């Protein structure tokens, strides 16, 4: 199978994630969509690593996973804090700062 197909799949998953960020209101789901985008990147990295025959891409994929985990910690903390204050996890409710 042409390894380029994996890259196309990665691009599709990335796009789904990006569209998800735009259309979903719940902050948790928005955040999950961002994680989906990161995973699409990982797929691209390992596919390219295979195509180039070196391991750099695979190593990067591990780093990205760790970073994503750290991001989850910080992100959930912030979203929780807002949820406790507003009793809502909708990103559209947070629009005091504008214009």
């Amino acid at each position, binding site marked *: 199978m042409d390894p380029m197909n994996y*890259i196309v799949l*990665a691009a599709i998953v*990335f796009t789904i*994630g*990006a569209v998800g*960020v735009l259309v979903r209101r719940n*902050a948790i789901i*928005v*955040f999950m969509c*961002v994680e989906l*985008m*990161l995973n*699409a*990147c990982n797929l*691209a*990295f390992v596919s*390219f690593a*295979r*195509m*180039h*025959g*070196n*391991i*750099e*891409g695979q*190593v*990067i994929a591990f*780093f*990205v996973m760790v*970073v994503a985990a*750290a*991001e989850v910690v*910080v*992100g959930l*903390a*912030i*979203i929780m*804090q*807002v949820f*406790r*204050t*507003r009793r809502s996890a909708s*990103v559209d409710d*947070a*629009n*005091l*700062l*504008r214009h």
Partner: protein
Amino acid sequence: MNPLPHTALAAPVITTQPPQIDYALLAPLLVVFAAGVIGVLVEAFVPRPRRRAVQFTLAALALVAAFVLTVVRVALLPAGGAGLTVASASIAVDRPTLFFQGTILVMAIASLLLIAEHRHGESAFAAQAATVPGSEEERAHVLAGSQHTEVYPLVLFAVLGMLMFPASNDFLTMFIALEVMSLPLYLLCGLARRRRLFSQEAAVKYFLLGAFSSAFFLFGIAMVYGYAGSVNFAVIHDTVAAGGAGALPGGGPLLLLGIALVGVGLLFKVGAVPFHSWKPDVYQGAPTPITALMASGTLVAAFGALLRVFYVAFGGSVAEWRPMMWVVAVLTMVLAAVVAVTQRDIKRLLAYSSVVHAGFVLTAVVAASAEGLAGAMFYLAAYGFTTVGAFAVVTLVRVHEGGAESGDIASWAGLGRTSPVLAGSLALFLLAFAGIPLTSGFIGKFAVFEAAVSAGATPLVVVGVLSSAVTAFFYVRIIVLMFFAEPAEARPRVLRPGRLTGAVIGVGVVATLVLGVFPGPVLDRLSPAPGAGTAEAQSVPGGFATTADLFANR
């Protein structure tokens, strides 16, 4: 992570040889990192009442030590050449790195002084961020005098990320640095003591948009990796220079997509239009000392990284990315300047001002030359001092004694009469933002515009000059309001600057004037010294064959 020969589908070879690392060149980063880790331990082991003093001392010492080490490292660089790379060429220690790191550290020290400023036991940060705003629990914590001393290690980690960001010599290191810098800042944004709803909202927006942009950045890296088979800047540069030899066959579009998406991620961090929309909201909502840190340190770090990526990794594709930078620079300079005209909140205004200034620095990036690099570096340092000073002034103007900051510009009317020194300092900072001669802002603008003109980007400079005329209008409007208008009905209360804040404002004033009147010594060191290159190389303008040679990358 050395790039391996392109033996298709060969089993990866992992050497057991540990890499040789020159730790002396990494010393400032290590010091800051160690201090951050110790800071976390301090939270666990030092009794509550003494934590603030210990944390502040630790952080201040670490930053000052890192700055001293940064200066010392200048002597370690080989004479004549650009610099060295460390740790399997993942970090570059060269002149731009040292300049950016030194600038970031100075900005971080100034911001740290603002962060540490206390009045009647109150800092700019929430007593207990976990409590719901307005709840009994929050009141109890306020009365008990709780404070978040975790702020200090968080700041140290953010500074570590900032130091790494412009020094990274491969995309993996750069991505890690980006996250190490951003994650603590997301948290710090949500910790304001007053107007906590604003602060929390700023944190959510910054976090979601930041994560969104870093996903673009990462996907861009994946594309570039797909093209070149490596994330090392030198390898990418060489692959492009060799006309794609060794690249993925038919990978040209991958490179272009990669440049675009990596660009998106970096332009988001510098806040260029149309990736700027987070800036006003976040700058307004975040605690002002953190805003000061972001407006100075983060901006410097982000531009350092942007310059390195576009000058080294994509230095061979200047013709490809230049039109894109043109468009972004024009949009940034024009739109942000126009929007700023009707802003009513001082922090939002300074945020838009920061966006416009990012546009001015982008004109130097477009130049893709030694002058462009020097101009951008000077501009960033000059702007950093001025902006930290301006935010320091903002922290002092309150709705009432012990109240929130009075951001409404209209309420600043007549401030020049009640607090002439403070208003005078702010006026100086605003004049520097406007680029009036004899301030550092003028020299900075002159340097970046000169670089752009030399590179043939005269129309861009014309746009820049027009945009700076618009910005001058709203800066001067504030000055007029402060000095020539009758004081407003609800006059804000101006706090006496504490020793720390006073020091920051003083340093800002002195730096703004000194860099404006005697910029020679600094500019001297930034521009490649005549005779730095070989005799043949000097026939090329600036003495360099390509932009990549301005940096150490091998």
